[in-house]
């Protein structure tokens, strides 16, 4: 069939030029020696001027990691990773302490400008008149292993919000870090989380004191630049009683023939009546049209609804990475707490996605909602893997899950692996999943009315993912929508 041939042809053409963020920034950098040993861990810790307890914590994780095996249960396949062939620390060479943004290497600022990230707050400082009520975003930019700039520090400080690189928080707020770090994702949690605990270099730290509603969106942009470098960021967000924060995360990397490793850990803690909204647009380099290169994304994200009436909501748009292994989860410990998971996972080319969520109901009257939309195109494999469980004492637990998969092309695969476990009779769980392709009738209808085939598919796909896009903060929703169409470009004929 000519239409199908055309599809195959177009998929073939999805190539490096599809990835808009594939440039490399040439700057001098300061790297740890290649490979992983106790010395590497000590090196990283020393680089960060960390207190002794932190080093001890890392070393303990490292020793444990040496006894662990890489998990193999996910539906992803990749050549064995040589953990000794990776740089675990890389930082742009710079002056010891930055007083203002002007001191940041202009090359790095240019990188973020190319990415379209408004790092510079000068505009605001210069008194440019902004329309009333316009939303602003405070950004923490992480370049390889270090945070290079955090904007709106002053304003956030006035509101009482602590938003800073985690390396700085370890030095300046050790009591908070010590109290919360590793309490949601323990160092022994899993292979990649343990590795992260040993070698994490930077990431964001957010603390909201009781009753504070964060005055703006917080955001972190992660960029892997150096060759052969792994990025191991660690994010810790704590919303104290009655606090609210919305946090966004974006990721990109240059195009490389070899695979880059990314093993992050994100921990969220919500106390009584607090709410954390965590959104991710993940757009790491997915590899070229032959499946060469791309980022291995092994991420452990978990939120702990520790207090009563707390709420944690994960929203993710996953379009990048050669391999995605990611299950943002909620532990619903507090009574009446609520967990939400909204996901769009798009795979094209040779990408492999194994993603989903866990909703663990421990408290009474806890509720959760899972909306997952998977789109598989090209020769990709897209798996939803999820767990919903209610423990004996979690009376009145409620869950609704809907996982829909859309297949574009006959070389890709879509899989759904949900686990639904109820240990008490008052738990009410509903799960539904569907897999299908875009209906010919719908496409025909659109084309009849003058849309091109691509536009028609775009329209259908956007309708398919609308439920999730609506959950994103406005700035991200626009970006995400664009990303989705770029990711799928050329996959339909």
């Amino acid at each position, binding site marked *: 069939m000519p239409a199908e041939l055309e599809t195959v042809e177009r998929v073939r053409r999805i190539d490096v030029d599809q990835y808009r963020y594939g440039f490399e920034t040439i700057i001098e950098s300061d790297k740890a020696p290649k490979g992983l040993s106790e010395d590497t861990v000590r090196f990283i810790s020393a680089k960060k001027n960390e207190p002794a307890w932190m080093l001890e914590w890392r070393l303990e994780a490292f020793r444990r990691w040496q006894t662990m095996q890489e998990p193999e249960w996910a539906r992803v396949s990749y050549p064995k990773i040589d953990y000794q062939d990776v740089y675990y620390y890389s930082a742009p060479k710079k002056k010891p302490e930055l007083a203002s943004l002007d001191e940041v290497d202009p090359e790095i600022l240019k990188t973020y400008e190319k990415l379209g990230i408004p790092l510079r707050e000068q505009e605001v400082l210069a008194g440019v008149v902004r329309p009333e009520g316009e939303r602003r975003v405070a950004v923490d930019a992480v370049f390889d292993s270090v945070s290079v700039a955090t904007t709106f520090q002053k304003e956030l400080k006035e509101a009482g919000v602590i938003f800073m690189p985690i390396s700085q928080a370890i030095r300046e707020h050790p009591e908070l870090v010590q109290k919360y770090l590793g309490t949601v994702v323990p160092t022994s949690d899993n292979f990649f989380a343990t590795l992260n605990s040993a070698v994490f270099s930077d990431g964001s730290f957010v603390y909201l004191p009781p009753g504070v509603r964060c005055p703006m969106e917080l955001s972190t942009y992660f960029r892997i630049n150096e060759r052969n470098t792994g990025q191991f960021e660690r994010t810790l967000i704590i919303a104290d009683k009655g606090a609210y924060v919305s946090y966004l995360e974006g990721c990109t990397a240059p195009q490389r023939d070899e695979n880059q490793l990314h093993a992050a850990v994100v921990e969220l803690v919500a106390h009584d009546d607090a709410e954390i909204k965590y959104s991710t647009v993940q757009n790491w380099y997915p590899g070229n049209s032959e499946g060469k290169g791309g980022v291995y994304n092994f991420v452990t994200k978990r939120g702990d609804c520790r207090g009563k009436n707390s709420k944690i909501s994960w929203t993710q748009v996953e379009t990048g990475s050669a391999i995605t292994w990611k299950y943002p989860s909620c532990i619903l410990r507090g009574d009446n707490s609520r967990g939400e998971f909204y996901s769009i996972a798009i795979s094209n080319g040779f990408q492999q996605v194994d993603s989903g969520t866990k909703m663990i109901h421990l408290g009474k009257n806890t509720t959760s909602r899972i909306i997952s939309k998977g789109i598989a195109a090209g020769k990709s494999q897209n798996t939803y893997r999820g767990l919903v469980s209610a423990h004996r004492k979690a009376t009145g637990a409620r869950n609704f899950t809907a996982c829909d998969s859309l297949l574009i092309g006959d070389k890709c695969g879509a*899989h759904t692996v949900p686990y*639904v476990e109820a*240990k008490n*009779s008052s738990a009410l769980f509903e799960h539904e999943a569907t897999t*299908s392709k875009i209906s010919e009738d719908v496409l025909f209808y659109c084309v009849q009315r003058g849309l091109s085939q691509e536009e028609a598919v775009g329209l259908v796909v956007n309708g398919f993912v609308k439920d999730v896009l609506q959950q994103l903060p406005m700035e991200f929703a626009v970006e995400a929508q664009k990303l989705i169409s770029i990711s799928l470009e050329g996959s339909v004929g």
Partner: protein
Amino acid sequence: MNVALVKPTSDRASGESFAAARSRLPGSGVVSEVREAAFAEFSKRGLPHRRVEEWKYTDLRVMLREVAPLAVNPDEAALNRAAAAVASLDVTDTCKLVLVDGSFAPHLSDVASLEAGVRLHTLREILETADNSTRADLLRTNATSDVMVALNAAMATDGVVLGVDNGVALKRPIHIVHIATQSNAASFTRSLIKIGEGAQVTLVESFVAAPDAKSYQVHDALVSWAGDGANVHHVRLVEDARDASNISTAIVTLGAKTQFNSFSLTSGSALSRYQAFVRFGGEEAVANINGVNLLKDRQHGDTTLVLDHMVPHCDSREVFRAVVDDRAHSVFQGRINVHPDAQKTDAKMMTRALLLSDEAEADNKPELEIFADDVQCGHGATTGALDDSLLFYLRARGLPEKEAQALLIQAFVGEAMESIADEQLRETAVATAARWLATRG
């Protein structure tokens, strides 16, 4: 994670039981070789446990602990007790083929009244007398590498081997009856059924205990092939003793344009696992696979389905219901595999669990694995208690609480039972459910 489990001593015990049982297993030469290989596989892997994904919720190392010694051939007294069990079966007017403690019992079976076009052998007879290639094939399967199927191949003592000729429409159901008369013993049976093109067959399987048989283990495998255009109805009724274990596997291959309608009802056994592997080998086949688990006390009931859509244009429907009371535990795992060439597959799976007590547990794992794009696949899973507003409605009309509950539960399982085409069999299933409800405390 990644904890290596220490091999428990129970596996050594079953190794010894194989050595002890070897002389009593039918077949020699190539059959023995197949058995040795199968047993080597079992000893290597041991009883499946929670780290084996397919057995995640049914950890045999904890629940079964060890494989019981092979049951001895039934004596006169055992056959008499088995006869009593046959007489008290709910299902009548079938052509019964009775297996007592893993041995075919010709005198209890309706061998004489087999209809024309049906050829009956026993597994033992073929293993002992047929030529080498046939014999060994009976114990082999490439449908699954499940370790309990390997154990079954190593230990199978008997079973029925049936052939139904092309175009034959059977008037009476063929009824394989498994009866256990011995306590603390294990029976291993394997039956093979080949249904010819265009044939119409109703196959019933019953698992029952003779009075006083306790804590026994049933290990059964059913391997069947349905020829092109065949119409097969399959009903399984598991009413084993309440302290027994039943580990059964069905391996089904469907030809083009076959209609396969299967229903399984489990109300007996302390521990039961029914795993069915259904493979669509020809286009335009339709499979309806339904089941009901009625569990109470500390019963554990596991139903695991794997559907392999290998070819285009096939439909499959699964409806599964579990009613779980007291401290019972229901498990449903269902996987729909759509292979790359199986375009136009239409597959739907629905599983619902009703929890009647605070300590009841239900685990559902419906999976979709799809490698073809032009398909319609879906699954649904729900878990919950009885609807309070419905109960209130019935009670407001004067029904006592238990009766109101019974009515709602009957409606809940009725949906899966409706699929049984044979009226007598359907009524038996409904009556079993009613009896189960009547005994609820």
